[in-house]
């Protein structure tokens, strides 16, 4: 069964460093999403992406964040200058259509020191 994959599974970085989180969505999906979950809290929407552009973003997704689909398979989230409060689990999700179910990857656990 096709699934969303994410790399790395864990990343530790120093405050102020740039990180890139990578996702490979399900191959025939067209809609891509990033969510994050701070430890012990609920899952929060960051951004949605379709047709090579951002379709919606939350207040969390400020100028420090960017997303890209650099080729036909990868979907990346970049945090330009990490802060301590960026420590969280980051989930990528994809769906085949706007009203289709979003399937999540296993997440990347980011720790900013």
């Amino acid at each position, binding site marked *: 069964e096709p699934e969303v994959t994410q790399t790395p599974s864990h990343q530790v970085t120093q405050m102020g460093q740039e990180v890139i989180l990578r996702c490979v969505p399900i191959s025939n999906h067209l809609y891509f999403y990033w969510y994050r979950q701070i430890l012990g809290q609920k899952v929060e929407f960051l951004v949605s992406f379709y047709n090579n552009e951002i379709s919606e973003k*939350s207040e969390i997704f400020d100028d420090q964040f960017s997303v890209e689909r650099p080729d036909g398979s990868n979907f990346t989230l970049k945090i330009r200058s990490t802060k301590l409060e960026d420590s969280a689990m980051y989930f990528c999700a994809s769906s085949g259509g706007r009203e289709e*179910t979003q399937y999540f990857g296993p997440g990347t656990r980011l720790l900013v020191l």
Partner: protein
Amino acid sequence: AQTVTQSQPEMSVQEAETVTLSCTYDTSESDYYLFWYKQPPSRQMILVIRQEAYKQQNATENRFSVNFQKAAKSFSLKISDSQLGDAAMYFCAYNWPQGGSEKLVFGKGTKLTVNP
């Protein structure tokens, strides 16, 4: 803004018994989607069940079923014949793609413990 409320931070059930997790939501829309996702200790988010608001029939997936009460804006999850592998955080979620936003709005989750 749409909100999702899960009023039970924790629940426990005996193996083989039935448990119901509660979820209420707030929306002024008539056509939307509701979901239950499971998050085991590995922290992966796994879809359990999905309900389209325009469907009166409650969704079922094997041992998992929902009680969707549209007028009451209630969407509870029933797990029958609970198994040890059902132990996880369960998140209720809502979205309204028909209104131009596919973002999922999640509740705070319910931690389910299954006792042997």
